[in-house]
């Protein structure tokens, strides 16, 4: 791998982080808008060892919790679990396929929201049902679409061998 490829990968990650804090608020309801930060974490995790992914997930969760202190800790736990298992599952089960990656983005978003909702204890009864059956799937879908678009647009830049990431 060329040295510049590594920088390109981080440029894409930085772009996603910037999108999270600049464009996301203009993409409609926060419940449905794609989570670019989680997308960056998942793209990073499926190319990284499980331990590093877990640490990255923990830091992303910490950043998210710092912005929403009411659920402090829930985001860390959720992102750690999602990042770790995304890395592990990608290594064990999945092939390099656009559709599979899309499903991973969708599932990762839904599971993250499920863990946050359950652990934080903020949602109960019908609201929890709506969150898990309506809003989370919708956000998973938009995140998956955004992820597929990113993978297609930056196919060459993101084609980093796992051992080098």
């Amino acid at each position, binding site marked *: 791998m060329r040295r510049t490829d590594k920088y390109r990968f981080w440029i894409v990650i930085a772009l996603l982080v910037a999108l999270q804090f600049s464009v996301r608020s203009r993409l409609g309801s926060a419940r449905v808008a794609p989570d670019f930060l989680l997308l960056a974490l998942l793209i990073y995790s499926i190319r990284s060892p499980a331990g590093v992914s877990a640490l990255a997930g923990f830091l992303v969760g910490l950043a998210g919790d710092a912005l929403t202190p009411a659920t402090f800790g829930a985001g860390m736990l959720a992102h750690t679990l999602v990042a770790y298992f995304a890395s592990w599952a990608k290594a064990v089960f999945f092939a390099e396929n656009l559709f599979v990656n899309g499903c991973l983005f969708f599932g990762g978003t839904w599971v993250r929201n499920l863990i946050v909702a359950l652990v934080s204890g903020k949602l109960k009864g019908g609201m929890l049902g709506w969150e898990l059956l309506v809003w989370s799937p919708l956000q998973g879908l938009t995140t998956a679409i955004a992820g597929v678009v990113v993978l297609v647009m930056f196919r060459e830049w993101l084609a*980093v061998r796992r051992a080098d990431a």
Partner: protein
Amino acid sequence: MALGQDRYASRGDTAVFIVCIALSLVSMSLPERMREGIAAALRDTVLLPLLELQDQSEQLRTSRARFTAVMAERDSASLAAAFLPELRAENDRLRALLGLGQRLGSGFVPAEVLHQSSPVDPLTLLVSAGHKAGVTPLAAVVAPAGLLGIVRVVNNETSEVVTWAHPEFRASAMAADGSVFGIVAPFSTEGPDVWLLELRGVPYRQTVANGTVIVTSGLGGVLPRGIPIGTIMGVARETEWERVYLVLPAIHPAAASHVLILRTGVGRPAPDDLRGAFGVGTAAP
């Protein structure tokens, strides 16, 4: 893409994972004040550039929304300003009409000149008062400035008015001081001169100065005396025994939006002499 090393999760990976999980659980169990302290510290340091980026983005969005709102307000203000002169003019006309109504006291029917959406005879008008309001044929239709025309056809709710520009219009007229009598008629039946009047039948030996106000004379019993018709502009032509004078009408039909229709005969008719109401000279008997 090459997938992983020989082991998908080494002991080190598992240890890091467990530590992260433990830290997460510890964070959740921290006291509220400590949580808020950590969160605030992160927001003020590591996350500050990202929050500023978010703030800039929000400002940009709200600035555009504010700009759009200001543009809309400016357009509304421009539209209102465009209508302002017309509204002022109409207000002045209505005030003048109210003043005329008060001076007349009684014997009139107020009416509005109705908008005619289809091309019709431009020399006639439709007004919003008819038989039910007490309008009768040949009643004088006046505006604050003077005579506009005569009612020709009366319906239940509306009336058709022949303006002074109509070829069939005639009115017995005199100078405001009563020194000269004649017949007022449209100056021409076509072209721009259709919007002028002429005073016919003035004996050759009599002269009428430019600017003399011409009013209805009341002779013939159709129109009351003293309604302004126009002012003398000059001599239009001369014959062996008479001079015909050009008269600038007191009011243009297009300028009238609200009018008064004078009652005749029935109920409480308008006074026979309206020179006082219109503020013209009363020297003549």
